[in-house]
């Protein structure tokens, strides 16, 4: 009898501990896919706000801000006016910077920063192109220097190279090489469904390769 009770108490304690300790992972596991899947700005902003809350509540996790920044980039693509686009990109940068105060010189955050700069170009290529494409390139370079095995940095760099090359009148500007590198990295990585570390990019890389590097 005593043993049963002790076991029950033990299980209960473990369950309570798990429930608290796993709260972060659980919340992230729910909100990361929600961020990817939200298809209207209102839902997406809800998810981004939730990620921000998680980030603010957790003193030493950079991931919530990373995904919040990603969410703001997605939001930016859903709105029409340039002013709104800039507003979301400003918030994306602010989120990346919050993440950086927790983890400085991080390859993932650096590539996200470059991603924001890259999207800045798309708002107004004529007047922003020169300045922000340079900033984006610099960020991707830095991200790769910080971690050469960051597939997302190679993928984003490829997109920037392709965009620049197209703007410059053709060619791929080394983009396909970057995509191939990204693909190789993604495919060598072990899939860990539970991990909250950034793992996106393979699908985008594959379709980029298909669209930009194959065919003709």
């Amino acid at each position, binding site marked *: 009898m005593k043993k049963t009770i002790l076991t029950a108490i033990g299980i209960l304690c473990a369950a309570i501990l798990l429930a608290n300790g796993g709260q972060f992972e659980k919340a992230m596991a729910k909100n990361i896919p929600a961020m990817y899947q939200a298809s209207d700005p*209102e839902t997406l*902003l*809800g998810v981004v706000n939730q990620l921000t809350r998680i980030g603010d*509540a957790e003193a030493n996790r950079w991931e919530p801000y990373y995904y919040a920044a990603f969410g703001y980039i997605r939001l930016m693509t859903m709105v029409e006016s340039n002013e709104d686009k800039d507003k979301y990109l400003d918030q994306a940068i602010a989120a990346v910077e919050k993440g950086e105060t927790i983890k400085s010189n991080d390859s993932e955050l650096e590539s996200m920063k470059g991603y924001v700069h890259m999207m800045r170009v798309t708002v107004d290529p004529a007047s922003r192109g020169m300045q922000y494409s340079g900033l984006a390139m610099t960020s991707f370079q830095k991200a790769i220097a910080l971690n050469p095995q960051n597939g997302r940095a190679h993928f984003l760099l490829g997109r920037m190279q392709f965009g620049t090359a197209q703007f410059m009148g053709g060619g791929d500007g080394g983009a396909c090489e970057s995509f191939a590198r990204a693909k190789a990295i993604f495919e060598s990585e072990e899939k860990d469904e539970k991990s909250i570390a950034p793992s996106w990019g393979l699908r985008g890389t594959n379709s980029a390769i298909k669209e930009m590097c194959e065919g003709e």
Partner: protein
Amino acid sequence: MKVPFLFLYLLLSLQSTAQITIGGYIKEKSGEPLLGVNVFIEGTYDGATTDINGKFTITTYETDSVILAASFVGFYDHKILLDKKTDNVQLEIVLKEKINKLNAVVITAGSFDASDESKRVVLNSLDIVTTAGSTADIPGALNTLPGTQTVGETGRLFVRGGEGRETKTFIDGMIVHNEYSPSAPNTPGRSRFSPFMFKGMSFSTGGYSAEYGQALSSALILKSKDLAELNRTDLSFMSVGADIAHTSVWKKSSFSGKIQYTNLTPYFALVGQNIEWDKAPTDVNGNFAYRIKTSKTGFLKVYTNLSSSEMDLYERDIANPDVLLPTRVTSDYLYFNTSYREVFSEKWGVRVGTSFTESNDFASQAGQSREEDISGRHGKVVMDYIHSDKLSVRFGGELLLRKGDETLINDLGQSLDGGLDETITAGFVEAERYVSSSLAFKAGMRLENNSLVNEVVANPRVSAAYKLGEKSQVSLAYGTFSQAPSNSIIYRFNAANQEHAKHYIANYQWLGEGRSFRVEIYRKDYSDLTRYSDEFTPSSFSFDGDGFAEGLDLFWRDSRTFKNTDYWVSYSYLNSERHYRDYPGSFRPPFVSNHNFSVVAKRFIQSIKSQLGLTYSFASQRRYNDLNEDVFLGGKTPNYHDLSFNISYLYSNQIIFHAMVNNVFGFNNIFGYEYADRPDSDGFYASRPIRPPAKRFLFLGILITLAKNKSISQLPNL
């Protein structure tokens, strides 16, 4: 016995984690509901986002007293303490709007900001580099903005009826003396400072901050770049020389250096000049910058510029063109600048700067010569106090020491020495107050004492801006400014009074998506200008000269209407007269032209991977003193025209080719006339027009970037 207890515990714990709901409604001061506000219980994940009606519902298991926070971009965070067990409450929260720097009114009267940081600028620093005809010279590009006058024989910035010396350059807040490199007589000089060194510049054509003194007309405020991001090496080979630049980056610091060698001998051998050169201009110029992050918020910049140049040429005697007068110009220059900034708290910040200038300029012609040594020291401390986003105050003090030494030798071998040793102490305070995001005021006061005249000058400066709509605003500015007279006056008479100017400016600005428009009217009154009957006789000096300038500046920029094309149009109308120097009354000075007009266009053409630029400039007639006429300053030059073209071809990400031609059509521009010292036997003064040294200037260059990572792009430098 113990089992029921456990159940009881379970039951209790279930009850204690029963959820409660907090609901409410969030709106703006105006009553408008706010969509997308993040409402949450501090320190937890629990929260919600307001819907289109501003409504939210939070469910939480927290039953202790909690802090409910509402956060929304552009608004102040709002926090409410909720006591225990406030289930099912309905809250009404009003968020207060922040003065948002992005959409708030900005005081723009008198100033053109060019920056890479802010998105809402009229120009950015790349625009400077890519303007056709500017040859990557900062003043060259700024001369396409309204408020400037084309004075082609100097290459300097003449702003709103002011002489070139009335525009002062500041680097990171510190004054720069002698900022132009030397040039042959009546040929334009260039700024010693490369635009690539700066992340932003503010070109003020009047009404600028009380932080800046000793400039009557204009302040060019340059902000140097921060920490570099990547290691790189750049090489350039040009038709006029070569340079090498290198940047090294460490964790918290970076170093950039550039050494430039200019030699015009091969170029002059190919392209005929109006000047007979014995030794074409050569110049060695080094720029070094070191930046270090001293703490999370602290930053130290050290910058230095060293250069040495010389040239030898023959000028023809005006009366006897067959007589060649050997002419030599040399210059040695050192500028050193440090600036340190630190933020102590959210409210307090400090900037400390020092600068140091040593220069030696020498010019001689057929036995006559002039040599001048200038040594300048500048120290400055500025405190920034941010009371709230509605009120900030800046105050500081500075000390400017300047020593000058001039030796003039005439063709009879007689020499005349002059010296100056000036100490300027100044203090300033300036407050900026935002009444709302549509109305802002700035008021400042600058007190300055110049040891040479020992008189304290008070220069009040006020400005205001009001936002009319989402895109348009009006600004007004008033201020008084003072500056010591030109060195040549002080060398003769040390206690020469300071000169003064009052500026009145009204400005309207419209900033749309990819388009901007501004119009500015102004009036400037000069007083205490130096007058003399003979500039070498101090007893003939008096300091009661005056003058005025009034006009209208228009600016339109559009990067939207035509695909891949960006253009801007500037027009300035200026009416200005002065009674100073040896003028017998109030006259329009020779550097003033009533109408200045320019169009700058840039277009990127993808199919040829090239950026093309075109600049057309027009300036109406200028006056000159025709010694053979009785009328003072009665001569009129023809109108000035120039059409410059440039092309930058991106061969690869690492290699760019540049080509530039100015005055493509070879307009025959005349800036004025110079006259022989003495009349001939018939009482006639021989004369000769002042023209550019060659009709056209051609520049070719190739820029190569070497970096570990091949994909570093030169595109931003295009």
